């Protein structure tokens, strides 16, 4: 049982790291702000969520799992909101210009 969970966890964490790397690569290569945001917010949230799930598989104890979930939820919330804010600010700047 534990080996299955370990393998599952490692796989999820690897996938999550891959997502984060992809987000970083996109941030580097994509041309403008909105497309960067588009790539970043989704890949970032998915990557952190996968890592959280993977880590949750590998830990024991409800407290650790709960704090991991809290981390994931916070990242998802703040990522979405800041992305929204940045997009809106850039739109306003464009309108003014």
């Amino acid at each position, binding site marked *: 049982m534990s080996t299955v969970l370990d393998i599952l966890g490692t796989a999820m964490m690897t996938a999550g790291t891959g997502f984060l790397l992809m987000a970083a690569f996109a941030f580097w290569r994509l041309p403008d702000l909105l497309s960067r945001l588009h790539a970043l917010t989704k890949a970032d949230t998915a990557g952190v969520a996968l890592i959280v799930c993977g880590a949750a598989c590998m830990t024991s104890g409800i407290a650790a799992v709960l704090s991991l979930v809290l981390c994931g939820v916070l990242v998802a*919330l703040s990522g979405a*909101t800041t992305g929204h804010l940045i997009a809106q600010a850039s739109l306003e700047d464009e309108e003014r210009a």
Partner: protein
Amino acid sequence: MTQLFDALLAVGIVGVAVAALFANDRFAAVGAFMVMGFLVALSWVRLGAPDVALAEAAIGAGLTGALLLRSARRLRVEPKMCQSRWSVAASGLISIGFAGLLYAAITSVPTVPAYPPLVAERLGESGVSNPVTAVLLNFRAWDTLLEIAVLFVALVLVIVVPVSRVRPAPLGEMVVPFAKVVVPLSVLISGHLLWQGADAPGGAFQAGAVLAGGGLALVLAGAMRLKKPLQGGILRATALSGLAVFGAAAVATAALTGHLLGYPDGQAKIWILGIEAVLTLAIAATLVLLFHGSVRRVPK
């Protein structure tokens, strides 16, 4: 395996630091600096110093990064002075020599720290079981008091030299729900950090920084407008209360025990928690004010 991780981390830290120092784009430089802060915090967790890692992530990377980002747009880019290649090369060579000297100096002597046995011996009397908190608020509380004085002086300086204020973000439909979640959470987490600081990583500075993060979310969402003199006044009074209460506590201890900052026998924990509670609020208020600039009345 862990060694490979450490090596990657060390290389990563230096690489990101190079980006932070030499990037042409200001925002990229500040971003790299923040990433460096988080990587360094990670390395300090590896080195068994979680208290410092928390502080570096929250204050060193987070708040300093936010401050730098605030200023990056406002500061005029100064025209690049043509520096002679020779002076740059000379400075580079001197730095390389300096690095070598420093490395040799650090590694040539095996350090025998005088403190660990002393801390271990006295930890029981200190009232708390987290050694870092014991050092900060009991053994070397005088350092901490002066550190609060540094925050106080910086606040006075920022008030005397007012800058234009932070423009709140355009309120979108997501901001208010976000602030509704984040602010209570930051209060909760900061209270947790404060309480747990007695026995585990945490304490007034980390708690204050988290609380300041929540406060900044309020300010940036436009929910807390410091234009109202009342709010600015309350925030400023809270900020000043840190040094005032810590100083008054020092006077009180001197009167009670005859030793400045020597807590009465058996009551150390209560004193420490009381001081830390006030410090948390004061540090949070100071950091918010330092970020936000002071209230500047523009004559119109």
